[in-house]
């Protein structure tokens, strides 16, 4: 499969990339690792006339854990996320989820920025960022703005990213120490998108759930922030009734498409199972 023709650009700064996008207009696309975009180009479902490769922009790379604030540059690969001990200490759910993305070769090139900015509901990082209540930092010719991950996704492949803007980093406050976490993903095989997946971050105190945050992957047009499911467990001791309610409330907000992974009904069911398992695993890990 041969993609359509394009001109290739490799700017060395965010400013240069933003100016290029401004001058090239809507025929240009940025490429990070390219493992979502290049397959689309090979199918000619994406036919950009200009490709702006961000790999030489040092300001888009790296992980910083500064006090309680975690900032991850958009061009940080999943392999780099997995390798970061500082990140694994501050926010271990990122390593857990990254290990469930693609396969080793894909994780070597796939980036957090590409994963969250692409807008594919199958991507794993968006729900994770919603569970962590992360902000995305967007840079364009008219300046920089932050958009919450919970407000970023509009529909499949439609996001708050404006034409000419680059998502330069994600930033969030690390969950409190002793928090519990889990990313439970059901998939048919390694490398597959989720049939359904759930990200859970919570804190426990004396057997009672004090705080919880839940989001779901690939069971709707966008990642789903399952606020109701989280509310269903806060203040409880995670007994059977609370877990059942959380799973039911999570299932109620899903709207998956029927595909090779199963019927809509089955995928909704799996979303409930993943929610329940992730809550139980997170609670067992909390201290």
């Amino acid at each position, binding site marked *: *499969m*041969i*993609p*359509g*023709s*394009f*001109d*290739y650009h*490799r700017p060395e700064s965010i400013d240069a990339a933003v100016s290029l996008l401004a001058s090239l207009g809507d025929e240009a696309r940025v*490429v990070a690792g*390219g*493992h979502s975009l*290049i*397959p689309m*180009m*090979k199918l000619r479902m994406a036919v950009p006339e200009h*490709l702006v*490769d961000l*790999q030489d922009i040092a300001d888009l790379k790296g992980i910083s854990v500064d006090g309680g604030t975690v900032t991850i540059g958009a061009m940080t690969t999943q*392999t780099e996320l997995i390798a970061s001990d500082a990140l694994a200490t501050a926010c271990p759910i990122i390593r857990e989820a990254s290990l469930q993305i*693609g*396969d*080793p*070769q*894909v994780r*070597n*090139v796939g980036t957090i920025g590409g994963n969250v900015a692409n807008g594919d509901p199958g991507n794993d990082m968006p729900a994770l960022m919603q569970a962590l209540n992360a902000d995305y930092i967007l840079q364009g010719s008219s300046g920089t703005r932050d958009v919450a991950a919970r407000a970023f996704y509009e529909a499949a492949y439609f996001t708050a990213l404006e034409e000419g803007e680059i998502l330069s980093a994600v930033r969030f406050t690390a969950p409190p120490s002793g928090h519990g976490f889990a990313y439970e993903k059901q998939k048919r095989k*390694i*490398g597959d998108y989720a049939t359904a997946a759930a990200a859970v971050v919570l804190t426990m105190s004396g057997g009672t759930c004090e705080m919880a945050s839940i989001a779901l992957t690939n069971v709707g047009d966008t990642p789903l922030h399952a606020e109701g499911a989280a509310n269903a467990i806060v203040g409880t001791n995670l007994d059977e009734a609370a877990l059942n309610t959380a799973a039911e409330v999570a299932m109620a907000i899903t709207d998956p498409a029927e595909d090779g992974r199963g019927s809509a009904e089955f995928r909704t069911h799996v979303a409930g199972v993943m929610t329940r398992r992730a809550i139980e695993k997170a609670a067992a890990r909390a201290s």
Partner: protein
Amino acid sequence: MSKINVKLTVNGTEVEKLADPRTLLIHFLREELDITGPHIGCDTSHCGACTVDLDGKSVKSCTIFVGQANGAEVTTIEGISGADGSLHVLQEAFREHHGLQCGFCTPGMITRAYRLLQENPDPTDEEIRFGIAGNLCRCTGYQNIVKAIRVAAEQLNSAQEAAE
């Protein structure tokens, strides 16, 4: 659309050529450089037959434009065997332990296994399976591939110990 000047170091040899930006790394290797060890299997970044080493990392060369690899060091299966054509320990182990049947996946499989053993010189069977999860084999059922990689790791480690 303007061509780009591509410079790569492939298996230790510097190459420089003009290329259409839409050229995928696998096509550049196979068609421009006649390096036909890396195979095109699925052409959709699933099967791993096109796996090469790019600046010390395993990648699928069917899903990387040659411009993205510009300036990089690339190692293919051709660069893993000795310059005199002698087989690498991994290649010997695949032969000895029947780690291949049709052989189509083997160049990618061994190129990935080569990097896996740099990343983790003494992997468990489970770590081997997780480490080669991006390489599909439709013949062997993987049992003998895992065995071959484990044996190669043991041989490389004992050679290393003997040298120290």
